[in-house]
């Protein structure tokens, strides 16, 4: 996966955290990995175009709850529908902002999905290169997993 794509996701994540959560984040080194191990609350969004695949934002539960509290001005007592909605919207904004920075790839976004439960693994099909980008923030650590393949994935024409 080229550095331009990784940089776009790092920059968009920084922008979304600063603007929506008033939080400065520090990215770690992006590294290839074999599978995603979920931390508790994962926002998943599909990308199609000259790059295709899925992007997964992996939060642990306390971070997801704190982030929702900042967005709404009131911290939820537990992981509820608003936390799920907030993680979905953060996922949408991070991927949408990266899409804008990668205009030449002619990308389209699917609607985000949120998966709950820590410890489960997400394995990508062969041909998809998985890159994990760790982040530290004042609200805790999280990661962004890029399971993307360069080149347009053929669409059924029937």
């Amino acid at each position, binding site marked *: 996966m080229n550095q331009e794509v990784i940089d776009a996701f790092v920059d968009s994540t920084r922008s979304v955290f600063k603007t929506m959560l008033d939080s400065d984040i520090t990215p770690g080194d992006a590294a290839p990995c074999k599978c995603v191990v979920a931390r508790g609350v994962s926002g998943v969004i599909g990308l199609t175009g000259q790059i295709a695949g899925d992007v997964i934002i992996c939060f642990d539960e306390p971070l997801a709850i704190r982030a929702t509290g900042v967005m709404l001005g009131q911290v939820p007592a537990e992981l509820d529908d608003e936390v799920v909605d907030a993680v979905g919207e953060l996922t*949408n904004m991070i991927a949408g902002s990266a899409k804008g920075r990668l205009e030449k790839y002619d990308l389209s976004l699917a609607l985000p999905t949120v998966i709950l439960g820590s410890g489960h693994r997400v394995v990508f099909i062969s041909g998809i290169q998985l890159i994990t980008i760790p982040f530290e923030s004042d609200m805790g650590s999280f990661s962004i997993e890029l399971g993307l393949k360069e080149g347009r994935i053929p669409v059924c024409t029937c």
Partner: protein
Amino acid sequence: MSAKVLLVDDSGVMRKIILRALYAVSVTDVVEASDGVQALDLFNSDSFDLVLSDWNMPNMSGLELLKEIRATGSTVPVIMITTESEQGRVLEAIKAGASNYLVKPFEQDKLIDKLQKYIAIEV
């Protein structure tokens, strides 16, 4: 009299964030919809001074909603609030009749500035 606003976004959290901005400009008469189909039904059965709409939503997108609203002959101001930031997408929305455009993520002050432009006309 306060302006009446139709607020369309599939994210309840985003609707709450936008509602805070509307309250900041003293707009309290707000009808919410979570997709374009629901919004179009509401639009056709009521009168609004301003529409705020997301773009990517299930059932009917914000762009399709905008086109449907303009097809009725309505000139109501429509502000698109969306993650779609590419120049081509912005132009597509403006061509379809969007009055203004705000890219997510946004600072609350930026939204308030835009709202004041349209709300001031109606109050």
